[in-house]
């Protein structure tokens, strides 16, 4: 049968992004960490291997396993396929992030596992800033023979991971260890200095300069009473750094934290540990729209911190020269016909909240006071450098940006992803290659068939609800600012949680010519993924499948016409990767292939 105009074209599974996209977690991870592979390794007790897979992709497994913003988890397929009545709980993703920590916690000595650097290639690179993005560039380039010089004003490496993220979420040793591995990757020199002029740096003869200086400035809030109350009004990120360095060890009993992001959550929980008894978070927007991750809000609430929403700060109230609290105006959200939100006063009377100290955590900004504006480096109207979005090259060909310094504050995993990409660009730049041609990911395909009904992966689908990470008791946690609250999974919990992963990288691969259209796969599929039907236009076809395919984000796997002229259509959306289609197929038209996909980093051939 010939394909008509609007008919679906057969899927080209040789395109690496086709099956990559099916692995929802890996696709969503900015660094494209091969998640299911490391989860299986954890289930088999192979923590070193699990760690190394992570280390290659995301550089900071122990740090990220505690602090990552985990964009992979909302994407995880498990969150779409669970059945609340079976698990007795809401639909939840695999605890991908906390399993990463398991790999870091239980690994052995890695000496011998970390790759040896290639011989020197004689090139010198400068990384300005010692945060996760710079360290990623340093690791990737030092490993292939570059000399990398890191400049950071701080005494220790890690950037905001070191200075802003509180120790009760991330112990110092973990930062030391993983920053150590990064700079240990080759010839990396660390200068404990602030860079005050990019112009001077350009004169130092570096082959390329990477700017990973973050978004260091906390946004201030100019309200009446600010000058009078100054002593007790702090900018969140600066205050956190001061606590981290041990400059601040106490705070007032009543603390107001302004802002709904992650910084606000860290501020309020830190305040509770420094003696704040009545700590209140006040947010202009609603609870759901807060920028903080849901788990961070949960953790704050669990430490007796109320979160008050829809209150716009109006003024600092100072009495007798001392801050006593703040006035807030109740607001509500109004949406215009374009769906844009506006916060307008409700008309209710203003509300006073008592406070001895106020922590302002209403946002972060970029600042590049040390970059001269006459050296040819262009900035946009928001004060951010003009960059190529994939190569991270600035208007000065030898200068690259990444991490929070590139497009404004994001998070660690994005900083790492930027670092990898910038390192590729820097290497190509030094080699005189085109920067726009990016290396394809490395893909290994292995059939999982061991016997007629035996697979080299565990295809049984667990129905257990998500495993909770044990926490330190609240009393003990609040007493010691360095005591880590999350205790991490033990081996038994880790294995239990690992079983929840559906092995989305073990792909259903269909070979049309082998199919006899017996319907066995279609009948067995627990998720009604498979349909044999006449071809058609996608939107219409999606309505007449075994089950309607309403999630347009997810692909349809389409075969060429079969013997009867029909096509096989598989909706990838909710496939459990259970392999039953392949088990019930009499001809081997379906097989389960593991697609191991790893991003190609600087200097590696794909």
């Amino acid at each position: 049968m010939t394909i008509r105009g609007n008919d679906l074209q057969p899927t080209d599974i040789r395109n690496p992004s086709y099956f990559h996209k099916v692995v929802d977690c890996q696709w969503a991870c900015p660094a494209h960490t091969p998640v299911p592979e490391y989860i299986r390794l954890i289930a088999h007790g192979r923590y070193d291997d699990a760690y190394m897979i992570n280390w290659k992709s995301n550089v900071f497994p122990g740090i990220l396993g505690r602090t990552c913003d985990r964009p992979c988890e909302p994407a995880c397929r498990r969150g779409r396929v669970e059945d609340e009545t079976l698990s007795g709980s809401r639909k939840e993703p695999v605890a991908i992030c906390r399993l990463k920590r398991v790999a870091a916690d239980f690994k052995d000595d890695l000496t011998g596992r970390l790759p040896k650097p290639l011989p020197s290639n004689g090139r010198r690179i400068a990384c300005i800033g010692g945060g996760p993005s710079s360290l990623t560039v340093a690791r990737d380039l030092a490993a292939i023979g570059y000399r990398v010089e890191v400049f950071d004003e701080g005494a220790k490496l890690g950037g905001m991971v070191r200075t802003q993220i509180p120790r009760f979420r991330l112990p110092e040793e973990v930062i030391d260890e993983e920053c150590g591995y990064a700079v240990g990757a080759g010839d990396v020199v660390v200068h404990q200095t602030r860079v005050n002029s990019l112009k001077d740096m350009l004169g130092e003869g570096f082959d390329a300069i990477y700017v990973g200086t973050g978004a260091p400035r906390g946004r201030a809030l100019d309200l009446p009473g600010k000058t009078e109350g100054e002593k007790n009004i702090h900018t969140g990120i600066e205050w956190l750094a001061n606590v981290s360095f041990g400059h601040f060890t106490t705070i007032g009993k009543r603390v107001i934290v302004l802002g709904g992001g992650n910084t606000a959550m860290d501020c309020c929980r830190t305040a509770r540990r420094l003696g704040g008894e009545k700590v209140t978070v006040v947010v202009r927007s609603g609870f759901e729209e807060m920028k903080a991750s849901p788990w961070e809000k949960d953790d704050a609430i669990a430490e007796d911190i109320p979160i008050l929403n829809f209150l716009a700060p109006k003024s600092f109230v100072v009495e007798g020269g001392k801050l006593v609290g703040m006035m807030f105006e109740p607001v509500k959200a109004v949406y215009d016909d374009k769906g844009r939100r506006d916060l307008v006063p409700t008309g209710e009377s203003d509300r006073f909240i008592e406070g001895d100290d106020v922590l302002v955590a209403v946002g972060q900004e970029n600042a590049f006071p040390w970059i001269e504006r006459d050296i040819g480096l262009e900035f946009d109207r928001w004060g951010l450098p003009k960059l190529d979005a994939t190569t991270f090259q600035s208007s000065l060909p030898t200068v690259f940006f990444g991490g929070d310094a590139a497009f404004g504050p994001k998070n660690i995993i994005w900083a790492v992803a930027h670092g990898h990409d910038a390192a590729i660009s820097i290497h190509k730049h030094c080699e005189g290659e085109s920067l726009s041609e990016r290396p394809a990911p490395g893909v290994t395909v292995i059939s999982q068939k061991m016997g007629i009904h035996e697979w080299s992966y565990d295809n049984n689908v667990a129905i257990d609800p998500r495993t909770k990470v044990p926490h330190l008791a609240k009393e003990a946690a609040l007493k010691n600012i360095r005591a880590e609250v999350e205790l991490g999974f033990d081996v038994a919990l880790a294995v239990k949680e690992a079983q929840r992963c559906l092995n989305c990288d073990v792909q259903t691969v269909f070979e049309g010519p082998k199919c006899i259209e017996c319907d066995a796969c279609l009948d067995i599929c627990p998720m009604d993924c498979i349909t044999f039907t006449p071809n058609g236009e996608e939107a219409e076809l999606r309505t007449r499948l075994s089950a309607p395919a309403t999630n347009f984000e997810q692909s349809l796997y389409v075969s060429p016409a079969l013997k009867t002229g029909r096509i096989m259509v598989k909706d990838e959306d909710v496939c459990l990767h259970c392999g039953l289609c392949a088990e019930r197929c009499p001809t081997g038209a379906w097989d389960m292939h593991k697609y191991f996909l790893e991003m190609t980093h600087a200097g590696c051939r794909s």
Partner: protein
Amino acid sequence: MTYIAKPKLHHPALTHNAAGFTRRDYEGTISTLCAGCGHDSISAAIIHACFELNIEPHRVAKLSGIGCSSKSPTYFLGNSHGFNTVHGRMPSVLTGANLANRELIYLGVSGDGDSASIGLGQFAHVMRRGVNMVYVVMNNGVYGLTKGQFSATADRGSKSKKGAVNQDSAIDLASLAILMGATFVARSFSGDKTQLVPLIKAAISHQGAAILDVISPCVAFNNHAGSTKSYDYIREHNEAMNRLDFITGQEPITADYAPGTVTDVLQHDGTTLRLRKLAEDYDPSDKAGALAHIQERAAAGEVATGLLYLDPLPRDLHEGLNTVAAPLNSLPDEALVPGRAALVKINAGLR
């Protein structure tokens, strides 16, 4: 043989029917038949039909004989009653069960060996008695369970997997059933659920002896070139006489059909069978004509499928016997064991 249980997880859009069940609730345990067996497809079609008919699983009794086909009731309707009888004896056990409790839906599941060889006599009698049931023959032309010997439905001249040629002429169970007095006779193919599911639904709603002869390729022993029951052969030679839409309640004919091509048949239980004619001169209410037509098609090397014969006003076994309407298990002891006085009276009546 699959070792893991089918995952309980299901598509998020899985719906409940009017009886409160999902389609998954009509499944049984995972099949132990060979992968690709037509029987599994028929099981799936039965699951679809029962779901769509809003049948409460506990109202169904599945009875079968011996064979791969007769094993299959384990793989559907896991919450229904089940009875695996001895080889070829399903019809008499089903008849007995039906006599004791006519409120259940009886699903007889058998194979071509079970029905056309050892059970041929039972097959004939259950049809002529008009037992209210759906009799499904999963017809693969071989004794699958005992490794592929020709069965009595194998066509003369067809080849076994090893190359032996069948010398005996075939029994056509559909024609035989028409001759024997079955009131609903259909033939279908396991690989065509769009034809099969409505036929099963119609057969279930038919209040008399309904038989479905379903050609069901045996992937292990009868799916090779030279077989006349293989996927390829049936796809090439399948001649559908009509297409059936099963309609509950009174729905007007909405689709645009050429005049004379659609016949609506109202059944006892208020459901309608809407037949779309595919073969010009086929009339399923004409018994003799139907028999002749099936023969003609067979002579032309074609397999006639669809609703082959229908008597919309069947007579059920109970009518003739004048048996009590209530299931025996619902009657009080006094009614079931009326005592010596009643026996004396009966005996007196026979003198």
